[in-house]
């Protein structure tokens, strides 16, 4: 009996700790959003974040999309052959990439690249008292560090997803035409015929949500980093893990919202 009570007690403590963490992250997110409505807005920091998060993530997102598109074409061709349905390759590659794999894999790659970098940068700023220095220089750290990054990621990741969709479809096209003997015109025709605007838009909306999550987690764990190199290391790891899990969880929720019958 005592053992059961002890286990239940531990479980309860874990649940309470988790709920408290959810509350802290929610308050952090609300504070970030409310800063959007109050001046000043640091345009230079926003521009810098846009380049760092958007432009410099393009190679990794592009490569991911290219290889995913190619692999998807091979898989669908092999699977479709069982039902004599090889011709669905172009349309399934396009739909799979735009709705699901483009935003999710793009989001995860950005999480690995950006959430870690933001958490490490802000965490280091915290342990070296640069955050305190910002405050003494009459600059709100949330406004100067968090808002530009979160806003930049929310705007840049959907664009990355859009570019990733095109590159991914091109990856499928190259494999389809080069390895699977599709005609170039037929492949493109099948892709365009079955792809709907909502497939692309829904993926980009997911991208915006994932971008928000990635930057928010990076900033939250950076701002709450522990002391020393170990503290910054933990913050970086936690930011990537939390961003990745939240991307996958929110992807399911958004898919339910967008596509459930």
């Amino acid at each position, binding site marked *: 009996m005592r053992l059961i009570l002890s286990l239940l007690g531990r479980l309860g403590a874990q649940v309470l700790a988790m709920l408290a963490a959810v509350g802290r992250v929610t308050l952090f997110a609300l504070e970030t959003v409310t800063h959007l409505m109050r001046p*000043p807005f*640091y345009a230079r920091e926003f521009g810098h974040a846009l380049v760092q998060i958007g432009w410099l993530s393009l190679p990794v997102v592009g490569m991911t999309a290219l290889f995913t598109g190619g692999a998807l074409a091979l898989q669908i061709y092999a699977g479709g052959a069982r039902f004599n349905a090889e011709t669905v390759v172009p349309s399934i590659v396009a739909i799979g990439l735009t709705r699901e794999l483009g935003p999710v894999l793009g989001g995860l790659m950005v999480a690995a690249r950006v959430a870690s970098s933001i958490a490490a940068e802000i965490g280091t*700023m915290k342990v*070296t*008292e*640069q955050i*305190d*220095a910002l*405050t*003494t*220089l*009459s*600059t709100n750290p949330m406004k100067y560090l968090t808002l530009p990054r979160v806003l930049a990621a929310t705007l840049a990741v959907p664009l990355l997803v859009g570019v990733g969709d095109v590159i991914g479809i091109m990856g499928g096209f190259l494999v389809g035409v080069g390895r699977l003997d599709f005609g170039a015109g037929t492949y493109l025709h099948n892709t365009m015929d079955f792809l709907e605007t909502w497939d692309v838009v829904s993926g980009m909306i997911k991208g915006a949500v994932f971008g928000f999550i990635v930057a928010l987690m990076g900033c939250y764990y950076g701002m709450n980093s522990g002391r020393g190199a170990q503290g910054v290391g933990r913050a970086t790891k936690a930011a990537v893990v939390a961003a990745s899990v939240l991307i996958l969880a929110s992807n399911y929720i958004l898919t339910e919202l967008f596509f459930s019958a």
Partner: protein
Amino acid sequence: MIELRDVHKAFGSNQVLRGVDLTIPSGTSMVIIGGSGTGKSVALKCVLGLIRHDSGQILLDGQDVTRADRDAFLARFGMLFQGGALFDSLPVWQNVAFRLLRGSLKRPRAEAREIAIEKLRRVGLTPEQADKFPAELSGGMQKRVGLARAICAEPEIIFFDEPTTGLDPIMSGVINDLIREIVTEMGATAMTITHDMTSVRAIADNVAMLHDGVIKWTGPVSEMDDSGDPYLDQFIHGRATGPIAAVR
């Protein structure tokens, strides 16, 4: 004038400040000394509002700092951090002119740069250093850049957190002289925390000894050597034996 009245601050079960009472008259230089971990930095950060004190009052010119308009309040302060706390991503001149490039004190970029270079010159750095990044400077130079940043907006009150830690004796002397000159020349109120007794004698008008979360002794620096206070005596003479335990 800065007044701390019965200020308490705890972190969990660790009671750091246990009722600090201290007055720093305007235009004077107060140095707070005390062993590591006695709460000197916490006291300083409580005054600035970087840490919220649990109880007691902190007054600036008679006004409770927790009720002051935050921007107007912080605009009166400059601070030199222990490690410099320079922003790695910005060149030296933008670090120095940080306050002049944004917010209520914003100036045109060229004018802000000119002021930054003038302040760098004031702390003994050449204009060539202005476009370098903090990582390209030595520790002593970074400290001087931090000092230039602290005085750039000509604040009424300047805080110095361990200004000579990690510097060689000559560079420590340079920083001490700069602090003394700048504080005198600007007529600013200064609050410094340090372990360095050479700094204390060079910078201080008044000294306060913080131990066990309370001020054990406070008075003019000229009376420090003859205070008769056993805590202060042990600290300033660096004795291993006395009322302050060597192992904490």
